[in-house]
């Protein structure tokens, strides 16, 4: 973090008593640390402490309501011998990869469409945020009904189009269940991408488009050589956030399938919860949750480095 020093230097030059709290506070080193103290304490208390506690838990055999004892990496070894753990790892990567890609492409399309001039533009933009605003649990319950074979509006439509009754089993078939949670996550996360990229699009100076047009660039070329390079930093940042949220997703799966059928939709977060809260094995649950960390940390470091470089 860099701090502009001119104002402080100017204040320091004023005549004053040499030893006073005011002067001490005005010193750049002290003042900047003071300003940072509150957020640092906040981070240490609400992020640092749970994080360190989580790491300590993962190294213990710690049943709920009982004292824990240190067992080193045994929990992680137990995880690696657990076939479900590997299933969960694959599920989480497939879910995150597919949903993020869909959200990125869809979000970009949405932003480009919303960047056009049309009537009631602002109202439409506001309405687009709805899936993101509605509490996840509520919208997921609505999806639960929409995908239910007996009441499914989706299946009714498909049967109307000629599919045999009762239609696809969206939550009973393992592949379709994964497909369903990816689609619902995309539906929910698309507005976040769309609106953020729209904000980015609006910062692109119109002169660049004019210049490109004069140089003979068509619509695709203007998008490829003007819009995309300028949007890239924003796309990367949104992707970073989206990957973190999607990777650690919990509510959607917990409400819709609870990880079923046969763990086909079980993700790291839901599996860790089942083990920690369902089975009461806090240490083992923490170890499952922590295995998310290396993958996410690598991604964050890689993206940050890339952003710095560009």
């Amino acid at each position, binding site marked *: 973090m860099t701090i502009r020093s001119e104002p402080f230097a100017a204040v320091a030059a004023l005549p004053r008593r040499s030893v006073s709290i005011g002067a001490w506070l005005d010193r750049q080193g002290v003042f900047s640390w003071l300003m940072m103290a509150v957020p640092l304490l906040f981070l240490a208390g609400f992020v640092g402490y749970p994080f360190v506690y989580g790491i300590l838990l993962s190294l213990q055999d710690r049943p*709920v309501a009982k004292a824990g004892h240190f067992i080193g990496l045994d929990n992680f070894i137990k995880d690696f011998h657990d076939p479900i753990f590997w299933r969960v790892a694959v599920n989480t990567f497939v879910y995150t990869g597919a949903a993020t890609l869909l959200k990125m492409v869809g979000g970009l399309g949405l932003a480009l469409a919303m960047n056009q001039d049309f009537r009631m533009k602002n109202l439409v933009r506001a309405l687009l945020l709805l899936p993101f605003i509605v509490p996840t649990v509520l919208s997921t319950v609505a999806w639960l009904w929409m995908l239910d074979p007996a009441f499914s509006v989706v299946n009714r439509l498909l049967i109307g189009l000629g599919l045999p009754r009762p239609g696809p089993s969206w939550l009973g078939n393992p592949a379709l269940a994964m497909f369903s949670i990816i689609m619902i996550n995309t539906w929910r996360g698309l507005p976040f991408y769309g609106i953020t990229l729209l904000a980015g699009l609006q910062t692109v100076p119109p002169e660049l488009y004019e210049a490109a047009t004069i140089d003979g660039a068509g619509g695709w070329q203007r998008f490829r050589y003007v819009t995309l390079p300028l949007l890239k930093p924003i796309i990367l940042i949104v992707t970073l956030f989206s990957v973190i949220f999607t990777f650690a997703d919990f509510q959607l799966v917990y409400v819709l399938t609870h990880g*079923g*059928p046969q763990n086909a939709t079980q993700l790291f977060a839901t599996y860790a919860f089942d083990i920690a809260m369902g089975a009461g094995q806090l240490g083992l649950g923490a170890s499952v949750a922590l295995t998310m960390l290396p993958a996410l940390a690598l991604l964050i470091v890689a993206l940050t480095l890339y952003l710095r470089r560009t």
Partner: protein
Amino acid sequence: MDTTSRREFLKLAGAGAAVAAIGARPAAAQGKSLTVLHESSFIPPFDEYFKTTLAEAYEKETGVRVVYEVTAVGSAPTRISTITETGTGADIAANGLLQVIQFGDKYLDVTDLCGEIGQKNGGWYDAGREAVVVDGQWKAVPFCNIGQLMNWRTDWFAEVGVEKFPETWEELYEIGKKLKAKDHPFGFELGHGFGDNHGWLYPLLWSYGGHEVEADGKTVVIDSNETARAIDFARKFFRDTMFEDVLGWTDVSNNKAWMAEQISCTNNAESILWFAKKNFPDIAKVTDQAQNPAGPKGRFHLMDAISHSIFSFSPVKEEAVAFMSWLMDPKQLGGWYAVAESYYQPTLHAYDNAPMWQVEPRNIPYRDAMATAHLPGWPAPASRQMAESVAKYVVVDMFAKACAGTSTKEVIKNAEAQLKEIYKSA
């Protein structure tokens, strides 16, 4: 660790009994209060009865105020977990199936109190004892079972010539085939719910002679011919009587399907009939209930017990013991059971012929099922390994994968690998 010694407990219980016996307001009890934590009941009058009738009567008799704290369905484990980790909160908690094992260390040993209650009330059902005894100590006072039994449509069964629910799984299978052909399939949960999946799959496994572990609670014995036969049966039962969606069902799904008249037979608690009577009387008229069918090795049910525990760190332990002793007296307990009709099936034999069973005779099979009910890890005693196996859906997914097409050999191999890893720590 629970630091209350047996001697201390006797003192507490003695004092409690004295308070209850005297019935007057002892000066020490004046102004004291204790909190009882319960998950919100599916039967609203049940919670209401405690708050208005029981709590008020107790305060009048003893001067001790009893606060009935209701927590949302499914949130009790998290709440109890917080209370035990922080050492403050309620004084008495209603446990679900797994909490007695998980939190036993923080619960008062109530062996003597339970002995007394059992003696006065015709004795406990074995299943009641099985649900609360941890390492030889009663860590909770059994309250009831919420049985999982067969719910069936009498009108559709009659269409294929069946007037009485079949005795065996094989007979049920034959009926299911005919009903599916008539567009009245069965619907048994094979997904990741909390109760309706375990409710029929463990009993099915046992009725063919299969088990997770030996009675020693260590030796994994899931890989057996008996388990294989149970799985082979489940596969054809699923294929020929049900539809694919049940693989993804959670606990609400079969209730929805029942009220939508989509299925002709399922496995559920009494709530399905209770709800139908209140909201879909026409469906209720053609709904009946029966014990689980028998397999080659007998008939079994799953014990889904609720019990009350006293936190060992409670500052009002003495009052809590006295209150439990008072609550478990037929005068109080009988009334409380009665308001919920028979949704909560008593674990004491004194209630075998109570008037509550006559309110809805279709619920009587739930009473009879208690004699053959067990915890998921049976014949091993309750253990944290059993809790882990349940939370990881080992048995449920073993059956579900087979139904979805995986070979019997492979699903057993997977389940065995998981169970061996889980029971390694036993």
